[in-house]
């Protein structure tokens, strides 16, 4: 396959190699990107997908190897060169300027004196329509939820991309409906003859949207399924082939099907008798106020029991951030009370709640959850700054910090060259493990987790879910906010639905049909019909 002479309309990578201290992120990777095709790129966390993309986008230079465009060797030595070639990229992590409005962000790339706002607005409308998103052009990018930011990113890439559109995990934050819309617009783009490179961890998406598939592992191209072959495969066949390449051949078939999410989601946590469990966290009539365009919560009353996982379903940007932050103590409650093990903690700050064992795994793992420029070790004790044994008499005790870091790195199998490595260089999955390790250690009794598995590879998703269920089984309580309905159904004992800052209903997760009922609540809330489910637990 890689031997065909490059022809017009093809962008070919040849023997691309890129090494970072301690890792070879791309190891002699060759592949062809053909116009009118969706080329899926798969691989576990840290396999080197984003690195390859950043080389195509001109953000990084390969150590060796060539890029051929229409058969001619074409170095892409700056982001501008990539734009000039008609390559539009949606990066895995937001590159929007938070202080600018959506429209200003979209127009950033426009050169020339004439910056036609009306035209830009019209184009945004067009793209919003295509993406099925409603984006306020005058909202500040920093005020948008991560899911909305992702939509703006896609719009931004499509703004310019005229030859190749690269989407690095565009669906990790989108709802199923939005993913369908995205699939439709990708198909449309493809029909116009553009090439699309699509990175995802979800095999179903790869099978449904992709024309061909390349699998990376440890920086190497370990498998390619060509267009003809993929078309002849059934979904199960394709999944088996992909998983075998992705994780080696040691994945048993039932496990593979499970990993791939091919089986229908079903509840995996043990039954608990809520009545016999004590209430760990209780919100009564809690509301938040302020904070720009962010959606606030209104009159939220919830109770999470020990050993319980309470799921919160809803479209991203409907008050999830406010809910998580008011529980964690990062945002103050304008109304209502918060009780923890019966004690009123409404006025307690983040540190006070943390010491009680109330923890928070944020969905913004890059800018909020970790400090990228600091070492993995420091990030692992970030919530315990100044506490013994890591600080004694105000002075840091590096030995204790390193020992704790080594322990957590081993316990949670965090893949990092060393505990001194800067956290920002880890792959997404491993950064998520850093957060979980930090929050669930040292006397955790309750944890709020927001989208705990987005962007993680199949094995890590499984691991994270296992960590959460075990935490609950051992008496911890979990408030699980997620946009992934399957995940909620698998993990939760009950699922509450949040819409526009309000809890519109709670569904016990007992047997089949939970997903449908949650879905009804979500659409019911959106269309304004009153929810028929019980209001509170």
């Amino acid at each position, binding site marked *: 396959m890689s031997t065909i002479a490059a022809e017009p309309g093809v962008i070919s990578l040849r023997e691309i190699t890129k090494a970072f201290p301690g890792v070879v992120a791309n190891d002699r990777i060759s592949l062809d990107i053909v116009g009118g095709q969706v080329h899926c790129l798969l691989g576990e966390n840290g396999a080197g997908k984003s690195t390859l993309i950043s080389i195509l986008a001109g*953000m*990084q230079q390969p150590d060796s190897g060539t890029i051929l465009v229409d058969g001619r060797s074409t170095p892409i030595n*700056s*982001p*501008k060169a990539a734009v000039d070639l008609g390559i539009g990229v949606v990066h895995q992590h937001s*590159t929007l*300027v*938070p*202080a*600018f*409005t959506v429209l*200003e962000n979209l*127009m*950033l790339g*426009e*050169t020339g004196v004439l*910056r036609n706002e009306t035209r830009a607005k019209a184009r945004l409308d067009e793209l919003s329509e295509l993406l099925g998103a409603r984006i306020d052009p005058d909202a500040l990018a920093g005020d948008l939820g991560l899911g909305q930011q992702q939509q703006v990113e896609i719009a931004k890439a499509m703004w310019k991309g005229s030859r190749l559109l690269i989407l690095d995990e565009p669906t990790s934050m989108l709802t199923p409906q939005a993913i369908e819309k995205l699939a439709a617009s990708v198909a449309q783009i493809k029909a116009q003859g553009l090439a699309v490179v699509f990175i995802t961890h979800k095999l179903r998406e790869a099978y449904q949207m992709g024309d061909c598939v390349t699998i990376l592992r440890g920086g190497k191209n370990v498998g390619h399924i060509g267009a003809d072959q993929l078309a002849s495969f059934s979904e199960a066949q394709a999944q088996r082939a992909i998983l075998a390449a992705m994780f080696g051949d040691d994945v048993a078939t039932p496990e593979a099907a499970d990993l791939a999410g091919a089986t229908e989601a079903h509840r995996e946590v043990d039954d608990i008798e809520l009545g016999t469990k004590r209430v760990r966290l209780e919100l009564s009539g809690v509301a938040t106020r302020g904070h720009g365009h962010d959606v606030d919560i209104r009159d939220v009353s919830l109770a999470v029991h020990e050993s319980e996982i309470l799921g919160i379903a809803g479209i991203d940007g409907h008050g999830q951030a406010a809910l998580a932050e008011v529980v*964690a*103590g*990062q945002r103050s409650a304008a109304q209502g009370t918060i009780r923890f093990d019966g004690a009123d903690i409404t006025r307690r*700050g*983040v*540190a006070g709640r*943390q010491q009680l064992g109330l923890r*928070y795994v*944020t969905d*913004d793992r890059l*800018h*909020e*959850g*970790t*400090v*990228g*420029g*600091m070492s993995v070790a*420091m990030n692992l004790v*970030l*919530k315990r*700054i*100044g506490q013994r044994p890591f*600080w004694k008499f*105000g*002075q*840091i005790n590096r030995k204790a910090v390193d020992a704790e870091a080594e322990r957590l790195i081993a316990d949670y199998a965090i893949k990092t060259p060393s505990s001194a490595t800067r956290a920002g260089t880890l792959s997404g999955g491993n950064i998520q493990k850093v957060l979980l390790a930090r929050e669930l250690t040292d006397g955790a009794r309750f944890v709020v987790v927001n989208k705990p598995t987005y962007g993680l590879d199949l094995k890590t998703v499984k691991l994270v879910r296992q960590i959460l269920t075990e935490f609950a089984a051992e008496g911890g309580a979990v408030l699980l906010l997620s946009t992934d309905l399957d995940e909620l159904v698998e993990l939760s004992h009950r699922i509450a639905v949040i819409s526009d800052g309000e809890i519109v209903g709670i569904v016990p997760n007992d047997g089949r049909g939970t997903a449908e009922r949650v879905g009804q609540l979500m659409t019911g809330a959106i269309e304004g019909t009153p929810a028929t489910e019980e209001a509170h637990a």
Partner: protein
Amino acid sequence: MRSILPVVLALVVAGLIIVVMGSNPLDFYAGVWKYGLTGNNWQDSLRLMAPLMIIALGLIVAFRGQLWNLGYNGTFLLGSVVASGLGPNLFPVLPGWLVTAIIILGSLLVGALWSVVPAVLKARFGTNEIITSLVMSFIAIGVVNLLIKGPVHDPNPRVTAPQTATIARENLLPFIDGTRVHIGFVVAIVLALVAQFIVSRTSFGVRLDVFGASPKAAQHVGISRSWMIILLFCTSGALIALAGSIDVLGNVTYQRANWNPGYGDAVMPFVFLARLSPLAAIPLVAFYSVFANGGINAARSVGLNSDFLLVVVGLILVFMTITEFVGEKRRLGQGYLPAGMKQSVMALFGPRAAAPVKVTTPAPDKVTTSSSPTTTTTSTPGKVTT
């Protein structure tokens, strides 16, 4: 390496400028060496270094928290007027140590209080601190001039020039044995070492780094944003004002209206070259002190105006920017400026002005623009007036 490269380039280009102006650059640099270091000249250089170093620390405190405290000129003068205003009046009536203590504490307090304004505005309303601290600086400069022309003017009727009375020799800060370097220099070095200890070894240092890296992360960890802004701004202001009182008590002994040495403008590039490390700032500030002290006479000896020194500082800034730009493109390690600070500068110029610049390399050259308006009223740095 990256800390020194811009300095070397600036010196080379400065040499070329000297050639163009018809003088011999080697003579100039030899003069810098001679007047900056040889004989007893090194002592003058160290005396100049005392306020420069303390100001550098004040800037580091603010910049590490990604706060652009650009009000340093006004704050410095407020601190110095505390010394030049109170000193001549109090020394004759109270014990010397007490007056010195009052002046030191007074300047710290005044500097801190003056900085509360931009800090609170930023913490409460998110006002851009570049503008507010600059405005506060201009107000401070005006206030200081009014004070010197009015209440704290030299009571001696024969003195008509707008200036304060001189503090008597025996009331000045003591010299280090066998030199004419006052203990303010020791204070500056000790402060630098303490600052280094705080940023590298204490829990506050980590909190500061988290806050500097990302206010969002700081909030997540439980660090109060408002409190941090106020604390950092006030500490920064207090240190810079302290530099002013120490310079008066140890070096200049009295204050004229319109005196504004612009120390902050001069050390700013070195603070960034030191990547905001107090320890790394010591040799860089020492270098500049020698250069500035020797440069005045050296410039004169080759027939150049002493403003030429500011040209060199400007050149260092320019080359720093270029190195930063090229470095960022080729990913040569870290930049000098924390990313968030670039953003607050960009926000000042508005999205429209900043828009054509690519996101990955937000115009660091704006840094130069923002600091240059304050350099206009600068007189010769570190002139000893005894």
